[in-house]
């Protein structure tokens, strides 16, 4: 008891009464300096089982930086047990119409450095009209795979020798009718 009153008197000069909460809040200026002494005082106080604790003044509150809400078991349960269910919304891909596919295919071919953009049309044959060889054809098919995001197997790829074949193939794969 004596120790408790000692502590109380020691700290009372430094505590300022907060207007919003009932428990006294320690003045920050002295907090740092007293932290070392506080520890020993605290252990002594615990030994004597002070009435301060019985009154409901919690020692740890002295270092609070602002009004602290009491955490209820319900809050903890919500946080830990019932984790928030994330709902994922997957959107579908970019809109695809025949015109869009045509323009995309032609754009990819125009960007290919071995293709002459003036000779390029939907009907131009890669090997005969545009003068590409089978290796360039493989590169073109790879560029189409990257552009539209799906794999084209070799068996199908060797039949796609004109841009309009490619457009038709993609429309078949993506189920686009017009």
């Amino acid at each position, binding site marked *: 008891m004596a120790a408790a009153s000692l502590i109380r008197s020691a700290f009372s000069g430094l505590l300022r009464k907060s207007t919003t909460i009932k428990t006294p809040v320690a003045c920050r200026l002295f907090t740092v300096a007293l932290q070392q002494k506080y520890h020993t005082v605290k252990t002594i106080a615990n030994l004597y089982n002070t009435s301060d604790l019985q009154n409901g003044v919690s020692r740890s509150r002295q270092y609070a930086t602002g009004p602290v809400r009491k955490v209820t078991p319900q809050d903890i349960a919500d946080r830990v047990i019932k984790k928030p269910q994330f709902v994922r919304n997957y959107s579908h891909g970019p809109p695809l119409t025949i015109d869009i596919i045509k323009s995309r295919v032609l754009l990819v071919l125009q960007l290919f450095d071995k293709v002459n953009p003036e000779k390029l049309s939907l009907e131009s044959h890669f090997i005969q009209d545009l003068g590409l*060889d*089978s*290796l360039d054809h*493989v*590169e073109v*098919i*790879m560029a189409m795979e990257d552009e539209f995001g799906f794999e084209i197997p*070799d068996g199908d790829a060797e039949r796609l020798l004109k841009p309009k074949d490619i457009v038709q193939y993609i429309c078949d794969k993506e189920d686009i009718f017009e």
Partner: protein
Amino acid sequence: MEKLRHTVLKNFKSLHRTRLKIFDGDHKALTAARLKINDEYKKNKAVKDEEAIKAMVKFSEEIEQELKTQVIQAREVKPGVFEARITEDTVKLDNVMFDENAELPKRRRKNQQCCQDKKDK
């Protein structure tokens, strides 16, 4: 012969796919690798001998394996500090633990012979 042609084209495609995966983001390396692959394939376009073609196909497969396992990318994040990017295919060896008593091979002077040569003599 048709089957061989298919294999060659398939290897060409997978080599390019590997190139895209390994040098991802590095435009200079990507274009340099693309030109190199295309040049090498075009140079040997006229080869008709089946055995030679099979050997070249095997060579391309080995190159692809080398690229996938041995090549990594590193980027400089701070002056002198690099961040490496490795994939699951990269060959990872065990660390050699530091051993104080380990014997390091002595550096050979220029004209010294290997111990094996000395033995034969």
